[in-house]
């Protein structure tokens, strides 16, 4: 019986994910699952933020559902989503042939490098909330940005030593390109043919509508303000509780504290989408999250994972 499913990236969204996973697994990456909290980008996953700090080598790849409450368009825009997938690769230190590896991964998902014009166009990355920055490019395929390529220079206010290379693939956009689809909701999700076909819209359209309503109109701002303060407090409490007992000691609560930092960041994004944060306040909220991120980064550097 012939399968009614074609997992080639050009017919299947999940096929694209599986191909990337296999490719980076073959490069010795730890293949992680998405972090079980709401984040704005794959970078927030502790496997990137925290692991990018300290001297220990680290190679990981994972899919991260990313939430950008403000980008919701009630399912009406063919390119914009408030929830989408990033495929994240982090390699510390970055291997000398990271660009070649990246190009090979494009080849693996069916981008023929003899037919397509791939370009590395300057794009320096900065995350004010994470106190992080790096230099790199946006990677263009025939004029379309399909990935971000960054050499982390600083995370949580600390110099990266050694430097980690980070690749972020915008999966929906890449899939639209590979599948030749103009509207994200038309993507073939499972690679099913005929009746077996499940579209991206069938999986996510309703969610986009519901969450757009939630993000822009209904999200309980009083609760969110409370949650922000609570998360901020909890983060500090956990950092305090896990603090090293002496100069030589290790920190014992860096990761639970960092979870609260992530939470504060997402709550802030929701409040921002609800339009209840003024321009001046906005800056101060970003600063508060950054302070948490810095404190968590400092704590992580005092853990075994951070090389202490």
């Amino acid at each position: 019986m012939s399968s009614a499913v074609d997992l080639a990236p050009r017919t299947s969204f999940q096929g694209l994910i599986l191909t990337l996973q296999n490719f980076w697994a073959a490069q010795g990456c730890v293949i992680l699952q998405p972090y079980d909290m709401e984040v704005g980008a794959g970078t927030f996953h502790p496997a990137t933020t925290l692991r990018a700090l300290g001297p220990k080598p680290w190679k990981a790849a994972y899919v991260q559902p990313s939430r950008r409450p403000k980008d919701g368009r009630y399912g009406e825009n063919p390119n914009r989503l408030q929830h989408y997938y990033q495929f994240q690769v982090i390699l510390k230190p970055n291997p000398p042939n990271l660009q070649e590896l990246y190009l090979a991964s494009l080849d693996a998902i069916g981008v023929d490098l003899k037919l397509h014009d791939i370009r590395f166009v300057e794009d320096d990355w900065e995350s004010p909330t994470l106190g992080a920055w790096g230099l790199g490019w946006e990677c263009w395929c025939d004029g379309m940005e399909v990935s971000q390529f960054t050499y982390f220079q600083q995370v949580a206010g600390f110099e990266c030593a050694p430097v980690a290379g980070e690749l972020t693939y915008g999966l929906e956009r890449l899939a639209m390109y590979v599948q030749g689809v103009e509207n994200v909701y038309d993507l073939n999700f499972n690679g099913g043919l005929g009746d077996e076909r499940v579209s991206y819209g069938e999986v996510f359209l309703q969610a986009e509508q519901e969450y757009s309503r939630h993000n822009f109109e209904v999200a309980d701002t009083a609760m969110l303000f409370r949650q922000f303060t609570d998360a901020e407090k909890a983060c500090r409490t956990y950092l305090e509780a896990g603090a090293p007992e002496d100069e030589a000691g290790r920190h014992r609560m860096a990761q639970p504290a960092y979870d609260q930092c992530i939470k504060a960041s997402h709550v802030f994004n929701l409040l921002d989408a609800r339009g209840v944060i003024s321009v001046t306040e906005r800056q101060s909220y970003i600063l508060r999250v950054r302070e948490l991120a810095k404190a968590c980064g400092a704590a992580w550097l005092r853990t075994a994972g951070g090389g202490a």
Partner: protein
Amino acid sequence: MPDLLLELRSEEIPARMQRRAADDLRKLVTDALVARGFLYEGAKAFATPRRLALHVAGLPARGQDVREERKGPRVGAPDGAVQGFLKSAGLTSLDEATIVSDPKKGEFYVAKIERPGRPTLDVLAEILPEIIRGFPWPKSMRWGAASAKPGALRWVRPLQSIVATFGPETETPDVVPFAVDGIAAGTTTYGHRFLKPDPIEVRRFDDYVQALERAHVVLDADRRKDIILHDARDLAFARGLELVEDEGLLEEVAGLVEWPVVLVGSFDPSFLEIPPEAVRATIRANQKCFVLREAGSERLAPAFILTSNLVASDGGLAITAGNERVVRARLSDAKFFWDTDKAIPLESRLPKLDSIVFHEKLGTQGERVARIAALARELAPIVGANPDRAERAALLAKTDLVTEMVGEFPELQGLMGRRYAELQGEHPSVAAAIEEHYKPVGPSDRVPTDPVSVAVALADKLDTLVGFWAIDETPTGSKDPYALRRAALGVIRIILANEHRIKIASLSSKMFAWLLARQGAQIEAFIDEKPVENTESRSAEIVENFAIPARFLNFDGLLSKNRELLFRSIDFHRSESRYQDFGSYAKDENIQQYILIARQQLGLMIYVEDEREAAERATELAKQIYWLHGFALETIDAYDLGLLESIKSNFNDKFIARLEKFSGLESQSILVFFADRLKVYLRDQGARHDLIDAVFALPGQDDLLMVVRRVEALGTFLETEDGKNLLAGYKRAANILRIEEKKDGRSYEAEPDTALAAQGEPEERALSEALVAAREAASRAVATEDFAGAMQALSTLRAPVDAFFDKVTVNAEDPALRANRLALLNALRAATLEVADFSRIEG
């Protein structure tokens, strides 16, 4: 003569940095060589996205031998001196020195030092790594395993390899022996990333360039630009179209490819209903593609030029299709922006400007627009504009900042506003002013001439200047982050080109007062809005949020400490519970301070336009003052208007006077800034800076057009014989006066006694009469702005002044006569002051 070839191959260098980096590389290497005495015949540097290359031709194989003689100590000098000499001259013993005898100094040692020139190769090996380590990239980074250690090499993106060879054309060159952070210089490079990624062995520049060409790399950016430009023109021509040329984009695109392959894509003609500037901005900014127009027409064509970096196996079909897809998506966005924007009248966007911070200390765009609109209205009659239209245009001038289109493409500000205004049927002058009020942007940009545009352009620029002046953000040295010099120059050019009469200082003064009033209102709103938790943090917050009050409250000699007291007192006052026990507080030093400031605030009320609001707030403030003075609250209510009156008469006049003085001082300092800018501008136009100084030295020169007229008339006058001689006479008179006044310890500023002069020498009488007549005539002419006439009047003084100095002895025996003659000289000085301060004129 041998050549140096250097190639620094890296991952993709940002396009905008390439040309500068190539220049820096050439300069750093050749400067370092020259500094070590190595001259060269020529040097040229190149950049592609993946490499910087340098060719230095005609270097010597080794440096010149150095021969010098160094004088040493006398023969028989102490051992210490001898040892020092040997060490500094590099000798091991005195046997290597020669003895020279001198008839005066006797015999002494001389060392003849001969240092052979160092091989150039060694010197290169020394300087190149230094230059690479210290290369001035605008932004640089660390990477890879080496970045674990401090002091790792920094480069713009990871540096992959170094080629460095040195040698004559006829022989195999040497590799310059050096390494940086483990990257050793060699002879291997690589070709195009996709088309020819294999290693290439290079020896010297000529074969390097050729080998790269074979490997699909065009080394020279200018050649890449030529290729793109010509291919683009040809492809356009073949379709009956023309390329819309764009030098900035061409430079950028040439920095994105090593092997340019130019292709044409097309899009749906229905997108052409979007304004052409927006189509172009979309395709340019997002896709780095050129737009095309119909041959011989300004109309855009539904096609674009893209530059790929690949000779694709399908002839570029997939690349073109991919780019078309993205262009389509982008244009769909632009069309969506256009359609959405069109549906919303510009004036209904005004409230949104209230939420956009223009500058944290100067408030929102909304407030700024309100000020600009009021000022534009005020300026309208002066520049011959319809006041309603000027105000309307100013009101709408910034509304396009909150349109979708300008949000996406900030460079379209003004232009989109104009388009939307035209669509909603605004008067053509109003629509034009929305675009033109930003002008002139640069020295070569057009100056607006439509009166409405002029009014709004002046209002916009003056508001910027006064605003940043008020918060102390004035340009210093090379730093001018808010482009205030450009704004002032814009004002000058607009005024002069349109021959408008505008009193810069008094206008500025008025605007300071507006800013002041706004600030008072804002602090109150700020305090009302946020309940107090902690007065300390409140004070800090206010100081941080409102720079102007800090400054303006200071003007009464209040130190920053006193400001703190004010805020503490305000908070104290607002917490109701403390009303209970006022007696003790009334004596409190804080409260005394507060009273003072509350009085000042009261003074601000004269600038609140709404009379009722002013009265209410003044009453409130008056209550505070009186209450703090120890009156019971109930009593105050009874005082009512009578109270206000008494407050006004008691405190206000003094305060208002002070306020005006302060605004006046501020606007004077702006005027000085304008004078400087005008000087720079006129100097560029060929005017003498001393003449400009001479005119600005007169009081009340805030009408720039009149200043320029006066400078012109003065210049013409000083070119004439009469002018030159009068200036000489003036200088002589001023000289004598200076000496005599110093000797006598008094000045001779009294009017000369004409009767006394009439009894003296005939020349004395003549001068006295001429002075009275000339001064009167000059003054009359100046009053009618006839500067040439004023100069003409002064020129009548030449003959009597010459005759006076010829025949009359100033220092007469008779003290009364002497004093009167000195007074005559002073009267000459005074007469010239009608047109300019002659003491500032050189020559």
